[in-house]
């Protein structure tokens, strides 16, 4: 089975800290995505990548950046964490010619 692994299940960070959320997939998928999930708002796309070193902004990229140096790893970076970035973050991947994602279990980030 395809596995998408997010390095931390729960994370607590302080306002102003630089935060790295890591995501690794083991099935050689070209496309990788970062979403945040908030109650009543569903999932909103932050960034996605369809190849190594390629990235595109999603619907809510402000305050975030990403890095994809290797095909299997897609990192989400909060340059200076703020309390309004407290959320559940979900990583997903899929192959170039396929539909539907495989999701990781999520990282619940709390910024205090």
């Amino acid at each position, binding site marked *: 089975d395809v596995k998408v692994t997010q390095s931390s299940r729960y994370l607590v960070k302080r306002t102003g800290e630089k935060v790295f959320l890591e995501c690794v997939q083991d099935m050689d998928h070209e496309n990788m995505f970062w979403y945040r999930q908030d109650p009543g708002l*569903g*999932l*909103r796309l932050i960034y996605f990548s369809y190849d190594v070193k390629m990235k595109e902004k999603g619907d809510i990229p402000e305050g975030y950046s990403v890095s994809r140096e290797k095909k299997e790893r897609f990192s989400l970076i909060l340059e200076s964490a703020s309390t309004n970035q407290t959320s559940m973050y979900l990583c*997903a991947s899929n192959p170039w010619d396929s539909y539907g994602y495989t*999701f990781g279990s999520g990282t619940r980030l709390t910024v205090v």
Partner: protein
Amino acid sequence: AQSVTQLDSQVPVFEEAPVELRCNYSSSVSVYLFWYVQYPNQGLQLLLKYLSGSTLVKGINGFEAEFNKSQTSFHLRKPSVHISDTAEYFCAVSRGSGGSNYKLTFGKGTLLTVNP
């Protein structure tokens, strides 16, 4: 641009009753449609998808959905629910193949609660 509207934020039902979770979409081009399920404290899991062909799509766990192009709807149904179906359900739309077209736009979710 495409968008997805899930018409009910919460749906409570009794065990063994039928259920329908409603989803409408808007898009200026042909779309591909998906339903995902999220159990408590887990990531999302694909239930079913419509890409082309028969408008009635069957998925896992006894769920099915019907694509209705004229009404721009993709409602999810199950004839008899179990307690274990309690979860949040997300409808999603994609424009299709190639690069950024693969990205999914999600609805806000419907919390299905099955009571004994």
